[in-house]
């Protein structure tokens, strides 16, 4: 038997073991499985076509057509502090569509670019403000918290970066940076502008409070317009690259997201309502602190913080702690702490984690009062 076969055998035995011992006759298990499928159904019906799919296409387009060099110029060691902090706080939406790039970019900005502060700003805001995360949060958890997440992430990331730079003074080295190459796209700016506007419009319309029929009609027509634009105005190469990148993201994000949705749905009936209400049901210091510590430790794969939070809110979590979790969650987890520690060292990592927890707690408190 080859290694591949042994692997297969292992999986078969594992699945058999699970099936053998699964408490499929018990009431709680049946309720949980049903609830898991309910939530999956809900996502498939309400969020996949109207929010996720357009967002993935936009993410693909961003990584093909947006020139990263142009953005990174502002994060180099020569740029002014104000510029580098503000660019770092929003560049996550453009640069870090994938987790593959966040850490290398972070380390690069710190060592050879604008320094520790802007690098931390980027590290924090990067995962929080990508297009898919913003729109899926708004689509699933409601417009208000989606907006709050986006707006809070930006100043919070700057404050966190500034605090780190204030505590630790570091000198950045000089040196070049090599970015993922973008090929010359040969597309006119007007075409690209219309292309991005049309796709963003689809996501925005999805959030509007208008009649269902009109909404779908508008979204469908815009989608057709995008397709026509690509067919008639794009070079074949660019169109192919765009689809390729979109596929890359989908392949990496979707399976894990749906596993996350399933788990969140499965756990929903099992989470004791009393406990959630007692811990994070009120917008007080303790509730926000618990939520942000939980978010900082727990690992969420891209976007899965959303279904998990949905389950917690259904069980009585208040809006302040929910935002605190959304802020500290995606940028930090136990595994990511270990990786960041390799780059930053134990002391700086510990301080970074503490600052994130404290500031997320404060942001949650403020949001809860609004």
């Amino acid at each position, binding site marked *: 038997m080859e290694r591949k076969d042994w692997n297969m055998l292992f999986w078969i035995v594992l699945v058999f073991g699970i099936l053998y011992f699964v408490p499929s006759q018990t009431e709680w298990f049946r309720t949980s499985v049903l609830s898991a499928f309910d939530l999956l159904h809900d996502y498939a019906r309400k969020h996949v076509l109207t929010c996720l799919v357009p967002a993935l296409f936009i993410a693909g387009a961003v990584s093909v057509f947006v020139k990263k060099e142009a953005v990174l110029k502002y994060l180099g060691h020569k740029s002014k502090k104000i510029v580098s902090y503000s660019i770092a706080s929003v560049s996550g939406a453009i640069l870090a569509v994938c987790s*593959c*790039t966040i*850490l*290398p970019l972070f*380390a*690069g900005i710190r060592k050879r670019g604008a320094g520790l502060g802007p690098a931390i700003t980027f590290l924090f805001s990067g995962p929080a403000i990508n297009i898919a995360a913003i729109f899926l949060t708004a689509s699933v958890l409601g417009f208000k918290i989606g907006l709050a997440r986006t707006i809070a992430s930006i100043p919070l990331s700057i404050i966190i970066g500034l605090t780190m730079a204030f505590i630790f003074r570091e000198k950045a080295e000089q040196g070049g940076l090599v*970015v*993922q190459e973008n090929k010359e796209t040969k597309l006119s700016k007007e075409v690209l502008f219309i292309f991005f506007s049309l796709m963003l419009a689809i996501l925005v319309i999805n959030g509007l409070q208008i009649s269902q029929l009109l909404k779908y009609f508008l979204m469908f027509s815009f989608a057709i317009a995008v397709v026509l634009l690509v067919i008639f105005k794009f070079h074949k190469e660019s169109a192919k690259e765009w689809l390729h990148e979109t596929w890359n993201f989908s392949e990496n994000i979707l399976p894990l997201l749906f596993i996350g949705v399933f788990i969140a749905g499965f756990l929903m009936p099992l989470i004791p309502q009393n406990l959630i209400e007692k811990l994070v049901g009120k917008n007080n210091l303790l509730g926000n602190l618990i939520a942000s510590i939980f978010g900082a430790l727990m690992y969420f794969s891209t976007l899965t913080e959303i279904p998990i939070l949905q389950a917690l809110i259904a069980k009585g979590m208040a809006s302040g702690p929910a935002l605190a979790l959304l802020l500290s969650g995606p940028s930090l987890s136990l595994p990511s702490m270990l990786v960041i520690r*390799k*780059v930053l060292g134990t002391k700086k990592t510990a301080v970074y984690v503490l600052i994130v927890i404290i500031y997320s707690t404060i942001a949650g408190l403020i949001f809860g009062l609004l």
Partner: protein
Amino acid sequence: MKIKIIGSGCPTCKKLHQMVVKLKEEGKIKADIEYSTDINELIELGAMGSPALVIDGKLISVGMPENEKKLLEIIKKCE
């Protein structure tokens, strides 16, 4: 020649590694292949993204080549 793939442990990085290994197994390239997840190595090279493809100590590309053919082309150029 020596081919080194440096990644942050993300799925794309693993995929690139597998692609290079496959090319070797098919006999299309002759190389020692190494896979590293040490981020500090990435920074030393100045790579702002992953996976980074390093051939004989030189940073050749950052990010995923479109397909196997492209990858093979890139590697062949360095021989």
